[in-house]
């Protein structure tokens, strides 16, 4: 089967052999009420309240949301306004830690017997996609159409990031446990664990672990970016095409991140909600790049100092990978559920854009077969009909076009701006 286009990037997985270390307890955390896709939560604690580890501190009535929990025990000192790197505004709860890390009485393993109780438990865990998008997991696991295949996304195709890889090396039993849990609770027959070829050790381990289970396939995907993009991984592992306007579930597939699935298993065992996560700290301003397990709400500054970063030299801070990560405007912002990496970069040249030479590289690399150069031209003359014909709405902002452009044109950015021109139905 023909695989979709992709580009070969320099992997720079400097931290792949650094075992996860725990970040020491911070003196203060700031926990935003919106770290997921969907409606932000409202704080359910007040200033002056005592909170414990695992206690729910924010929730929402909206279906498309995920509750927020505290990762520390201590006292709520402030509830402030917070603007995320995406630009969304919500409240944030600031907690001063007491150092005891007393676990809340709320933390008890949930009783999971069937689909309904499982989905309820998933919602209460505060789980959302840990790969970066932050889609609420309980929504993802409750599609309207029947599902026959669960794809566990372990591609980790972005350079630098090794957080998912460390999950696979350090907690393989949690991953297999999580896969079986999801499969059994939702009645899904098959699972494909899709790993990029640049992680041979993980592929070997899981192939051995799943040798006697013919419902779990371990797939080796080519190390080509963006292998982990949802539509790409679905096509490259099952041959199914998620059509325009469809969800993966319309094709009978659910894609879930490998760290998310391992978290679900641990939650059902322990009842501890999503209050910590593993992330990769790297970039040329970081003297000791490593994988760190950190309490959600810790500031980037403290984490970077922990990794011996030359704070004054940082020119750019990226939350996520270099291809799709978000620029972080303020080093004192907190780590959120979706932070799978933080890259601190010393030198960053603002690129000078020149004219399109029509070399066609952007067209050749687009995994979806879009024509970014033509979209760029149509965008500049605000030709909405042409933009619709060029299917700009399908762009997933993988950034491959901007990456390869010899004229430094910001094609991926233009695609996102062009989307805004098309009226929503």
């Amino acid at each position, binding site marked *: 089967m023909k695989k979709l286009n992709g580009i070969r990037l320099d992997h720079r997985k400097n931290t792949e052999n650094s075992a996860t270390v725990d970040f020491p307890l911070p003196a203060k955390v700031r926990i935003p009420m919106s770290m997921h896709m969907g409606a932000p939560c409202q704080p359910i604690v007040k200033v002056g309240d005592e909170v414990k580890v695992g206690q729910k501190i924010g929730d929402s009535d909206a279906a498309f949301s995920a509750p927020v929990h505290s990762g520390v025990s201590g006292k709520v000192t402030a509830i402030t306004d917070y603007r995320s790197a995406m630009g969304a505004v919500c409240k944030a709860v600031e907690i001063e830690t007491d150092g005891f890390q007393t676990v809340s009485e709320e933390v008890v393993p949930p009783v999971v017997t069937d689909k309904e109780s499982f989905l309820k438990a998933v919602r209460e865990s505060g789980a959302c996609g840990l790969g970066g998008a932050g889609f609420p997991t309980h929504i993802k696991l409750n599609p309207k159409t029947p599902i026959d295949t669960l794809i566990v996304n372990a591609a980790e195709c972005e350079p630098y990031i090794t957080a998912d890889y460390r999950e696979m090396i350090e907690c393989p039993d949690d991953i297999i446990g999580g896969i079986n849990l999801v499969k059994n609770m939702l009645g899904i027959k098959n699972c494909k664990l899709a790993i990029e070829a640049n992680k041979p050790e993980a592929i070997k381990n899981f192939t051995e672990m799943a040798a006697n289970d013919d419902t779990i396939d371990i797939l080796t995907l080519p190390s080509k970016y963006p292998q982990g993009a949802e539509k790409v991984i679905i096509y490259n592992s099952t041959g199914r095409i998620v059509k325009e306007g469809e969800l993966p579930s319309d094709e009978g597939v659910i894609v879930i991140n490998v760290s998310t699935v391992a978290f679900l298993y641990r939650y059902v065992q322990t009842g501890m909600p999503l209050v910590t996560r593993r992330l990769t700290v790297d970039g040329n301003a970081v003297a000791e790049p490593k994988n760190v397990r950190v309490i959600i709400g810790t500031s980037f500054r403290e984490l970077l100092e922990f990794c011996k970063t030359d704070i004054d030299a940082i020119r750019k801070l990226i939350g996520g990978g270099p291809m799709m990560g978000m620029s972080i405007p303020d*080093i004192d912002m907190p780590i959120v559920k979706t932070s799978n990496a933080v890259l601190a*970069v010393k030198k960053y040249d*603002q690129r000078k854009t020149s*004219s399109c030479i029509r070399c066609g590289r952007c067209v050749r690399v687009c995994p979806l077969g879009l024509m970014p150069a033509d979209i760029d031209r149509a965008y500049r003359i605000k030709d909405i009909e042409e933009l619709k014909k060029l*299917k700009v709405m399908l762009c997933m902002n993988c950034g491959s076009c*901007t*990456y390869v452009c*010899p004229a430094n044109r910001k094609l991926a950015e233009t695609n996102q701006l062009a989307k805004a021109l098309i009226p929503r139905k």
Partner: protein
Amino acid sequence: MNRLVVSPSPHDENYLKTSMIMLNVIIALMPALCAGVYFFGWRALALTAVCVLSCVVFEFLCRKIMKRENTIGDLSAVVTGVILAMNLPVTLPLWIAAIGSFVAIVIVKQLFGGIGQNFANPAITARIVLMVSFPSAMTNWVLPAKFGVDAVSGATPLRLVGMTADELAKAGQTVPGYKELLLGNTAGCLGETCALALLIGGLYLAARRIISLAAPVSFIGSLALLSLIHGDDPLYQILAGGVFLGAFFMATDYATTPISTKGKVIFGLGCGIITFVIRAFGSYPEGVSFSILLMNVLTPYIEQMTRTKVFGAKEAVKE
């Protein structure tokens, strides 16, 4: 701490820039240029220098007058200059070459918006303009000569192959063999005679992934096939004249040829067919320049027809 730079993703880039692509094209043109200097003497180099210099100067002045950003650093004017020189007979007066540069850079390229915006290949158009404006100067062919010996005028291989035995005897020339055509030891434009050097340059560009071989292969292939059907010697037809120069360096120009592989194949086919028709039935012995120019004009339509199929896209419902 410095203020953090905030910009949209991706934050990474590859380092193949426009100027690097152009530099690679210049490198790829060097074997053919060296062959031209070897066969036609130092004047070939002087003519090339005039073309390159005048192209760069025209580009610089044009951008200055239009109050646009200076673009000579992207080296595309140098590429145009070298390709233009390779399309000229070595005997051409230098001032005519400068007029060619003016046509290529000012009229064809800059008046349409500069690099990437021109609809026709600058060097090809300049060659055609010069051909119709200065027909005798543009067809004043000489045979390759040793350095220091006066050049002797001679007919191009495509003329020779159409001559009768009597005419050949009168001209004092013979129809060149494949070896002469391959090495470039024939009369013709200074950069088009050595097919081997052009092939090396073209393959270098393909190996560096600067060009795709779709258009050259379909161009050369269709010309050979049609010549075979027509009863001509296909190998002679593709080695003689400007086919290799046109196929590898002008039918692969980014701005004036289609982007998709399917489009490139169609472009090459069109070039092959038109070249064959002009050679076999037209009054000009050579048709490569016209074929490429005509296909340049058709490129927007080819582009429309060969748009990529978007993954998972649904066709618009007709109302």
